[in-house]
């Protein structure tokens, strides 16, 4: 039987915070779809102590703020809940699309957005959506709460700005009218496939010109990334084929993919250029 580290199930957040700050090497478990595989597959040192946060219901749920300016998703919200949420489908359909591509029903019923964020895989499919949407990640600990922009959260390969005593509480998405957000994932098959390349594109159309452009990618670098040079090429550019050509040529140079079991660096570069070009063409309507 796989290793079974000791586990505690705190009843509320303050109990969870107290345990996390005692220095005993706690590792939270949410839906377990990453952590259980890591333990069973002996992919890394097993945690000394596991902190079961699955029952902390205050970290679950989706809400739009009174002013309509923010969509907040609790860390323990599952992909199934995200897919079914009318608020997400209305205000952030790209996130519902991303959730629908993750694993299959069994994974979507357990896997959480907070787990995707903290697991910090460069292939985490929601992470480019967070980057392109200028989302902010809310963290909490016995020391208080703080908010970090998604753009500053993934600091290195599987490293994050989260301290060991902190929980991710949720994600805040600013809702700006007139902003478009698109998602595209390329994997081996439609379900149960880890991305070869995943992309999110956000912009505001301003009289035939692209503004506030975000191009975010997964599986093409050590962390989920924004392609800032490519964003610069598109910023203020006319929604025309020539701009898309220039952007696609730029992104192919800008990203730093690797060869691994799922794909090759050359394939990832080529397909990234193509999916960006296609998205821009669809948005530009030429």
């Amino acid at each position: 039987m796989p290793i079974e580290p000791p586990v505690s199930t705190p009843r509320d957040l303050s109990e969870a915070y107290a345990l996390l700050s005692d220095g005993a090497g706690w590792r939270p478990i949410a839906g377990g779809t990453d952590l259980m595989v890591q333990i069973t597959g002996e992919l890394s040192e097993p945690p000394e102590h596991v902190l079961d946060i699955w029952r902390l219901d205050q970290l679950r749920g989706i809400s739009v703020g009174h002013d309509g300016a923010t969509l907040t998703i609790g860390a323990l919200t599952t992909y199934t809940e995200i897919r079914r949420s009318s608020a997400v489908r209305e205000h952030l359909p790209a996130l519902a699309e991303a959730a629908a591509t993750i694993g299959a029903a069994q994974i979507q019923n357990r896997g959480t957005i907070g787990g995707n964020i903290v697991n910090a895989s460069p292939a985490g499919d929601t992470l480019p959506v967070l980057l392109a949407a200028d989302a902010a990640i809310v963290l909490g600990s016995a020391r208080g709460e703080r908010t970090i922009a998604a753009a500053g959260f993934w600091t290195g390969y599987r490293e994050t700005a989260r301290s060991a005593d902190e929980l991710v509480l949720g994600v805040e998405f600013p809702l700006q009218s007139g902003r478009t957000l698109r998602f595209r994932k390329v994997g081996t098959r439609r379900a149960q496939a880890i991305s070869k390349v995943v992309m999110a594109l956000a912009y505001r159309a301003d009289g035939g010109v692209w503004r506030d452009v975000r191009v975010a990618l997964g599986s093409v670098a050590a962390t989920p990334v924004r392609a800032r040079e490519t964003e610069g090429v598109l910023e203020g550019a006319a929604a025309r084929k020539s701009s898309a050509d220039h952007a696609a040529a730029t992104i192919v140079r800008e990203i730093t993919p690797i060869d691994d079991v799922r794909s090759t660096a050359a394939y990832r570069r080529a397909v990234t250029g193509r999916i960006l070009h296609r998205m821009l063409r669809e948005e530009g309507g030429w």
Partner: protein
Amino acid sequence: MGYRFSVNGEAVDLAVPGMRRLLDALREDLALTGTKEGCGEGECGACSVLVDGAVVDACLVPVCQVEGSDVRTVEGLADPATGALSPLQQAFLEAGGAQCGICTPGMLMAGRAFLDDGGQATEGAIREAIAGNLCRCTGYTKIIEAIRQAAETPPKQGLA
């Protein structure tokens, strides 16, 4: 006192480590070996069970997380009094939805969750519902046929 939950409607109280996989608790501690282990890492769906109505991989769920929950396994599908197969099981039999059988318990539970959801039993919807369940034998066609057939079984006979 251990972890309390119910399995196929019967209360259990298991004094085992909380990080024990539900899969091991079912197979080793409760001797319910209908639930299979294929990959042990969420890829194959052979270990699919229902927890509070939702299909999950029992290899990824620690037993501490089912405290107070209603767990359903393949052993719970047939009529407990008569042993008569459920319409879904009967449909697998008739359509030829099982060959070697290793994927079948998981397929049945994923199919059951799909039927319980009550959506349209189109081929696309059924394929999506069993996308987390691998079968190396049937080519899926007859499994899909079986689930569609069960969806068409008149409700008065009891759905699945």
